[in-house]
């Protein structure tokens, strides 16, 4: 499949700002999807509200554009009503963690078979740069002009604790690893969660002396630490402070029973 058979060419160039990391994730997702040779007409793409949730509208397949934060709730319903469809959820950090935080935790707990790709750009980018739950400590945004005094959520660790089957975190600087991880997530049965720390030069970088997207990529490269290496180090605990360290890697890969098996969706059709 060519790139523009997978994506709608007539919609290009897309609306994302120059240097936005969402396009990188789109490339990696296309590559993973193409290498696995999955059928496009048997896959449903679901997005909530936000920049990253616009990705399903660019894919040449069925898309469900849902209310803010409820992408996982809609995907659960779709998956149970049409078990032959594969569901992929594209969502952002505000959509998934702040407004839909409870849906996210309960989606992991229920372990419905779906792939959730969260593009974490550390800010509410579409609405003008308000501080979100993942804005790092002491970083500036529109609503925190003296620096954000709160500590951010660690979405991947929450997914591990809530019981997802596959959890990984990468940044947009690690494109080959991200592609490999997306392939594993698409093949996984159960709730697969991939968090991608992405750059937002327009609203996050501009207020934090990183207006150039390449400066943000350099920040990712310098501050990211592989999880398998932190485990061996003295500090086993993952640092919540994104300003100091971004822990990347595969967090968990397990085979818990998924919700469809437990309630027997296949039997009832």
């Amino acid at each position, binding site marked *: 499949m060519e790139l523009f058979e997978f994506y709608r060419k007539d919609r290009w160039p897309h609306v994302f700002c120059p240097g936005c990391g969402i396009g990188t994730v789109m*490339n990696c997702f296309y590559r993973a999807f193409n290498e696995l040779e999955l059928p496009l007409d048997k896959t449903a793409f679901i997005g909530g509200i936000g920049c990253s949730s616009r990705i399903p509208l660019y894919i040449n397949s069925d898309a469900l554009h849902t209310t803010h934060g409820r992408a996982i709730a809609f995907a659960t319903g779709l998956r149970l009503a049409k078990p032959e469809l594969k569901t992929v959820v594209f969502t952002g950090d505000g959509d998934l963690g702040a407004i839909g935080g409870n849906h996210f935790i309960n989606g992991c707990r229920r372990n419905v078979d779906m792939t959730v790709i969260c593009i974490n750009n550390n800010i509410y980018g579409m609405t003008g740069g308000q501080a979100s739950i993942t804005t790092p400590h002491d970083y500036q945004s529109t609503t925190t002009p003296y620096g954000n005094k709160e500590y951010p959520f660690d979405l991947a660790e929450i997914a591990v604790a809530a019981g997802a089957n596959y959890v990984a975190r990468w940044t*947009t600087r690690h*494109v080959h690893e991200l592609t490999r991880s997306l392939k594993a997530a698409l093949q996984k049965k159960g709730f697969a969660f991939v968090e991608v720390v992405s750059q937002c030069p327009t609203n996050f970088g501009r207020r934090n002396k990183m207006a150039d997207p390449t400066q943000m990529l350099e920040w990712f490269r310098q501050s990211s630490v592989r999880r398998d290496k932190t485990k061996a180090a003295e500090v086993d605990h993952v640092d919540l402070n994104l300003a100091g360290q971004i822990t990347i890697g595969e967090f968990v890969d397990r085979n818990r029973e998924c919700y469809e098996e437990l309630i027997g969706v296949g039997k009832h059709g």
Partner: protein
Amino acid sequence: MKPVIDLKLCKACNICVYICPKKCYSKGADLSEIGYFAAVVSAAEKCYNHNRDGKMICELCVLSCPDQAISWHPETEEEKRK
């Protein structure tokens, strides 16, 4: 295979200039049709994939380009001889 930048898609974020390990790209000086100073392929012969007959090795620029502007095209016979 050599990289080619689609001038109708490039938004001049210069991520390719930063990410290429062989420095094949450089910042552009000419205004493109959609109003950006699009990056240019200044040294395609330095690319890892040059003269490798379709074998992909690095691909950092293709995967990283947020605007899907970079794609691979086969070289002409003249470029292959270089």
